[in-house]
């Protein structure tokens, strides 16, 4: 394995043989492709999910959206958006946003719906208005499930953004597709670049997941977090790294 062209590339120079931008640039691009769409998806899906959860209408829609999202192959959606809407990066970004919405929407709805009705009644009995119930009871109690949805969504966007390099966007998918195009199987230079790039994008995805896990601890109210710890280990799998917990899958599938 020839590591010599790898070091300058990792530190920011263009890769000489394969003409790929330096790794810091690719990392920054990938971060942009993930943070932008996920924030946009939160801005759309969070209010929508809270609202339909609060008024308890349109739940079937909220749940079916995430099933549909799973059935649509993201590669096909990117390519058709790119071909049909003007061969530019904008439709690809819109696709990334569209793919990020379903898990957040579904989990926000499910999180609000799963709030114990007695708690909601108690809040109403204490004289809280509908808006106050949403803000002070439902949102805090739904937070763990909402955050799990954001986490699923972000990890998914990391993967979809990697695919976007196929239509010419940058990011960490770039070296992977360039390596593939320069016969990764037989070209040692390409192979080294691919192995390094895959390691980077895998670490990137895992880091995004872990960081959002930390963020979840910060935004979940102390009282809820404590209660979780004291609870005996759940028999139904807890809300894990992806939103496809068996419990929910039984509901959503």
């Amino acid at each position, binding site marked *: 394995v020839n590591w010599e062209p790898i070091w300058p590339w990792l530190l920011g120079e263009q890769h000489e043989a394969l003409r790929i931008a330096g790794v810091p640039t690719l990392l920054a691009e990938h971060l942009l492709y993930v943070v932008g769409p996920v924030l946009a998806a939160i801005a759309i899906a969070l209010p929508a999910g809270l609202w339909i959860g609060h008024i308890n209408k349109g739940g079937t829609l909220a749940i079916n959206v995430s099933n549909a999202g799973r059935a649509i192959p993201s590669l096909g959606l990117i390519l058709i958006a790119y071909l049909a809407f003007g061969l530019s990066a904008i439709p690809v970004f819109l696709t990334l946003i569209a793919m990020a919405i379903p898990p957040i929407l579904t989990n926000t709805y499910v999180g609000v719906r799963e709030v114990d009705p007695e708690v909601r009644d108690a809040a109403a009995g204490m004289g809280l208005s509908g808006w106050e119930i949403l803000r002070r009871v439902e949102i805090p109690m739904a937070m763990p499930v909402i955050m799990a949805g954001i986490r699923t969504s972000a990890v998914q966007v990391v993967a979809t953004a990697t*695919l976007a390099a196929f239509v010419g966007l940058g990011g960490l998918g770039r070296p992977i597709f360039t390596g593939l195009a320069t016969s990764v199987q037989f070209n040692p230079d390409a192979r080294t670049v691919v192995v390094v790039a895959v390691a980077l994008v895998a670490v990137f995805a895992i880091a995004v997941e872990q960081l959002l896990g930390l963020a979840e601890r910060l935004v979940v109210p102390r009282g809820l977090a404590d209660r979780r710890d004291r609870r005996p280990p759940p028999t139904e799998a807890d809300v894990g*790294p992806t939103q496809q917990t068996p419990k929910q899958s039984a509901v959503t599938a």
Partner: protein
Amino acid sequence: VTVAVLAQLSRPFPDWAWFDDRNVDELIDLLVEHVVLTALALLFGLLIALPLAVAAVRWRRLYSPLLNFTGVLFTIPSAALFVLLLAVLPQGEPFGLGMGTSLIGLTIYTLLILFRNTVAGLESVPRDVTEAATAMGYTRGRQLLQVEFPLALPVIVAGVRIAAVTTIGLVTVTAFIGQGGLGRLFISGFRTQYPMEVAVGLVVSIVLAVAVDLALVWSEHRLTPWSQSREARA
């Protein structure tokens, strides 16, 4: 780009002329390839995940490491994993651009969902049922096969449904490493700037995902007749 845009303008969308005999024949071949890849990946996934789940239920301390490991594998972006497998596996059949490389990757992605749901399913079996089976003299193996698995089946099938739908989407990505089923239409449609071809691949793979999901629901109902009678009574 100008040439590409002109090429697009000359083709109407939707372009029903795409469905000529040759393309329809190819579509059927690709659909078959897609189903075969999905089915084999699920089969291998179950062969690995079921024993792991049984072990994790019996030895609790195995659960977290196995969940984390399959979780990390699941997190790796699919395009990256598939190209990596192509780069590092030995060349030549069945690897290289053959089916083996794709199947290894697809199987890896089924593990988390199948493992987690199977464990949850086995743990959802009520204690008094397993205790009754033990008291009736069931051996551990027979109890697992004849009592615990049937009762865990709805949760396991829920996992298989999610894994199947996810795998059908992932199969399209293996078009980059020589397989792909309907995903090949994505690549060829992209290369020839022909949106209709991509759209056909997209629609047929969504229809396939929905059809497989419904088929699994149906087979679950056939396999667990007791659950309906309970639903009917409730």
